[in-house]
């Protein structure tokens, strides 16, 4: 290595060190270990990143759903009282009385999985295993006619499920009302 090169390298290292020292100005907080991150990170993205290993079928889901979910959401996901329906509404979004359910409205199957995994069953959020979550998700998607009776969901197949309202969302065009007033 010639001298000039060495100098540039050292300078680069110095710059990096300075940058690090500058950015962590307060030296507060402790490093999160890989273990801690694994334990706490439950987020799932639409591309499937974050989904754990595991699997569940419609058949298993039918069973798990009846024991864990059906008493609130109804045995066929029809909903009751303040417990939302999990089934139905496809084709109603344009009409006078749109019915928004996970089947008719939610754009990603990963969202259904993530919500159930973190927040359901209502009284014991976060208590489902990955297998149970794959299974009840499969059953709910089956009730909505989105997957077949033989479907098995896992970290590869779940993100591939195409939800009926996948292309039903647009960005925020506001301010919209003023634009209309100005004749635009």
């Amino acid at each position: 290595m010639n001298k000039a090169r060495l100098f540039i390298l050292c300078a680069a290292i110095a710059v990096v060190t300075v940058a690090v020292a500058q950015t962590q100005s307060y030296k507060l907080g402790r490093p999160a270990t890989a273990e801690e991150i694994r334990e706490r990170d439950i987020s799932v993205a639409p591309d499937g990143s974050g989904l754990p290993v595991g699997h569940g079928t419609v058949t298993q889901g039918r069973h798990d759903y009846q024991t864990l979910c059906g008493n609130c959401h109804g045995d066929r996901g029809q909903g009751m009282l303040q417990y939302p329906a999990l089934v139905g509404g496809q084709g109603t979004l344009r009409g006078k009385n749109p019915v928004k359910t996970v089947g008719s409205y939610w754009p990603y199957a990963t969202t259904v999985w993530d919500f159930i995994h973190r927040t359901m069953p209502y009284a014991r959020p976060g208590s489902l295993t990955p297998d149970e979550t794959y299974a009840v998700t499969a059953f709910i998607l089956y009730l909505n006619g989105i997957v077949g009776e033989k479907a098995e969901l896992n970290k590869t197949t779940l993100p591939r499920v195409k939800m009926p309202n996948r292309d039903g969302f647009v960005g925020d065009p506001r301010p919209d009302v003023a634009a209309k007033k100005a004749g635009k």
Partner: protein
Amino acid sequence: MKRKGLTRRAFLATASATLGAAAIPPVGFPQELGAPRRAYGERSPFEKSVRFFPESITPASSYSKTPLQDLFGIITPSALHYEVHHSGVPEIDPRRHEIMIHGLVERPLIFTMEDFHRLPSVSRIHFLECAGNSGGEQIGRPAANPQRSHGLLSCSEWTGVPLRTLLEETELKPGATWIVAEGADAGRLARSIPLEKALDDVLVAYGQNGEALRPEQGYPVRLVVPGWEGNVNIKWLGRVQVVDQPYMTSYETGHYTDLMPDGKARQFTFVMEAKSVITRPAGGQELSGPGFYEITGLAWSGRGRITKAEVSTDGGKSWQDAQLNEPILPKAVTRFRFPWWWDGEETSLQSRCTDETGYLQPTREELVAVRGLNATDHYNGIKVWYVHKDGKVSHE
């Protein structure tokens, strides 16, 4: 009266009821020593204003509304701040609470509450408003008083650390474009927020109106995302993940998205647009007779400062400038007032506001013409109160 049959208890009850009716004591000075000191203050027993919430079979997934008609100034007392929870209010021991920042960062870090209290802090006054506030107005079900119609709105002084400081400590990696913020409530409510906003004015707040956050507002630490819909202001903050895409959580897909007449839904409609409401005289109140009344109300905008509030006392035919009370702060509630002499005739009262971007609060009709009746979130139409000859003020 059949005195004879009256038991002692019944007699006492009658006596005190009669007394009660005539029991407003004459004006005067107290003759006895007052109460001694107390460690934590309470309001006067004569003050009864409370949050409103309906009966619910799922009270942990529900809301309560601020009694706007009873408030003065711009700050909502913490005990009256509105609430929306989806998995109840957790009881968190601050000594056992940590916030992890990870994802697309050079140094994933875990902060304790002690760390937060040591970091450089700021205090700022901002409103919080639920995206669904006054949504009933849009679909033609106007509510009877300011609390019922607009009470998912509150305004506090928040103290905490800019989220930017924490993100700089962890050092962002290239490709970082969003964060996912997650609560440490039982349901671990999560929302995606664009990195640009996270680096702009978002606070990781532990203080509310001079003391620690109330549990209902996220004790011991929450996000305050100025001007944006309430739901992204994650309470009981436990985790911030730096990511390269929105994670499409349930509350940014299945909920808080606005379904338009063409069947498409607007997503990531974060900003709460300029809005105002007259809080006095307003629905549910009664004018005791013709004469002078100060009209007062609140105006706010998620896009910045309020520059103008106008009042109409003639059914929207003419509008006059109201006085804006100081302070007039960005993304905070501003109180306006307007002197009014009531002539005893039937009329209506309404307000509209303009923010520093020049945006003028629309009427309900203008709004419905664009957004239809299937969307009920992010509604900001003008609210009208009707004054009747007998002095009663109502919503219709």
